[in-house]
């Protein structure tokens, strides 16, 4: 027992070091600012005063949450339907969801430009185009996260039990399915948001006129290494903040639901915390 606990602490410590040491080094480097040992927020002040920073962050957040909403709206009902009514389609859906991994982003961009060319300007010349594309790019991860959530519950029985008690689909989804799929849905949300916040290649090629935060970051990179590292730290903080907000939103709903019934919710960490940590690393 003691040995296994020690092993656990050691493993956790090593993983912590693996994550924390590079972050600590990054933050320290950004604070040095080239003042030979003196720590300073000069790089941060310079970064925050850069024109275009605010708008790029807003664009990134809009795109990230747009992609998240569209992903959930498309995938959750589809995966539930396929698992309930067309289980044989799962193989096809899984294969399709993997396609974005097999096709290089540049090929996707060229294809998108060709196909979407006929679409109105409010789609192809706005962040909407990025939303559409990020939904596709995140598909391999978001599909698996939601599918794993759906398969971890006895979907058929829960749906049939709810239906037999008079629940329509909206009631069934809001009171039975969503709460029990919360961890899968949160995990998919984290992944889509993290991917959207960190993606550079597609954003720089498809929407150069309205840069997202990674595109903005690349554009100021030439202004100084300390500035770009400070902005990376800001990016990390923003990403962590957003993912924490999603996590708190998810677990907050759970707590309020339990409070109505006057009962304590089942113990356990808020769903998706681990994924949030991993996703933040992807972005940084």
């Amino acid at each position, binding site marked *: 027992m003691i040995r296994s606990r020690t092993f656990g602490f050691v493993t956790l410590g090593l993983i912590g070091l693996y994550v924390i040491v590079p972050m600590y080094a990054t933050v320290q480097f950004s604070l040095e600012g080239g003042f030979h040992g003196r720590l300073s927020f000069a790089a941060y002040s310079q970064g925050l005063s850069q024109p275009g920073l605010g708008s790029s962050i807003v664009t990134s957040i809009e795109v990230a949450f747009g992609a998240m909403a569209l992903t959930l709206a498309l995938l959750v009902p589809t995966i539930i339907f396929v698992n309930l009514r067309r289980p044989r389609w799962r193989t096809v859906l899984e294969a399709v969801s993997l396609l974005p991994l097999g096709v290089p982003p540049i090929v996707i961009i060229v294809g998108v430009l060709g196909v979407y060319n006929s679409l109105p300007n409010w789609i192809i010349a706005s962040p909407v185009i990025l939303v559409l594309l990020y939904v596709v790019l995140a598909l391999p991860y978001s599909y698996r996260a939601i599918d794993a959530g759906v398969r971890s*519950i*006895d979907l058929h*029985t*829960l749906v*049939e*039990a*709810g*239906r*037999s*008690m*008079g*629940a*329509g689909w909206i*009631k069934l989804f809001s*009171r*039975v399915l969503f*709460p*029990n799929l919360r961890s899968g849905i949160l995990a998919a949300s984290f992944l889509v948001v993290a991917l959207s916040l960190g993606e550079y290649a597609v954003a720089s090629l498809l929407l150069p006129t309205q840069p997202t935060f990674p595109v903005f970051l690349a554009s100021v990179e030439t202004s100084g290494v300390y500035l770009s590292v400070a902005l990376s730290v800001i990016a990390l903080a923003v990403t962590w903040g957003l993912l924490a907000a999603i996590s708190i939103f998810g677990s907050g709903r*759970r707590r309020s*639901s339990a409070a109505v*019934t*006057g*009962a*304590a919710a*089942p113990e356990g960490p808020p769903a998706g915390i681990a994924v949030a940590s991993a996703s933040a690393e992807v972005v940084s």
Partner: protein
Amino acid sequence: MSTTEADMTAVTRAVAMVQQVQRRAASTGLELVKCRRSFDKVQALDGFSISVAPGELVALLGPSGCGKTTALRAVAGLEQLDEGEVLVGGEDVTKLPAHRRNLGMVFQAYSLFPNMNALDNVAFGLEVRKVNAAQRRARAGELLDLVGLTGLAERFPYELSGGQQQRVALARALCAEPRLLLLDEPLSALDAKVRAQLRDEIRRIQLEFGITTLFVTHDQEEALSLSDRVGVMRKGRLEQLGTPAEVYSQPATDFVAQFVGSVSRLPGEIVSPGTVAVLGSRLAVPNAASAELATGTAVDVLVRPESIRIRPSPAGPAVVVRASFFGASVRVVAVLPGGVEVASTISAADSYALPAGARADIELLDEALFVVGRQLTP
């Protein structure tokens, strides 16, 4: 107990019986008419018809794949029929979606909503019907008391045992006052002792509510002990519908005779129309279809273990091969010359004289259960 107290008890019982009859009369009947449903090449229901009277508990009994669960799901609206009708209280609900049928169902798998505690699970049907929170909590609390789960209202499903979860599921199914109660093998995942307890609870509650109930099971003991009538199914059809005693003692077909209870299949011969000779005895042929068989026809005679007496006899023709202990009784299996197995139920005390290898006499005590013409192999 004084005479007055005895009278009061009798009056109380009589009032309870009258109330039960009234509840039955007020509840809803169920009818399935010529139902057909196939899955790919499998015909799950093949012209299946059944009628359940208001307040009655009918068990559908049959082997796996006989269509009993499909029939239940068709009533619930969870399975669409290819042909046929489902009538609830005379109303045709065949095309009505499941959530508009107002039926209560308990599933084989634990089906409680994991995100809700026991009280919220039970109250869910009322929540759907927009009953206010105070009323539905009060009603759900009553139902939990009824199923013996007082004090466990705040527990989540993972904090309850399998038996407790099925009790909550039963309370949940009844909470919104459904027209019918549908039970899809609700006891099959439970251990034997809990299963027996819950079986009695289900019957008690069903009688108390007077609710028309369709109960699907593959366990004949459950079906015979719980129901007003038993429907034995085979290959999507109803082989026989009758009281437990009828199904057990007067099977309509060879299949029912063998599926319900256990039988010994003994070789016999029709010696005159309506009479069969078997093991040196002459018995009346009980089933009409075989009563017309011609003299000299080789038949199989099906006999219940309790209709066979086995006695130790050093010169007897049978040899005891095994005995199964059931507490008060023992089932002894002996082999006759020619390899025919005969099973007899005797008292535990008598079984000591019949160890494996002992020779014995076999005697038929009662009439045959069923006689069927022996199929000639080509």
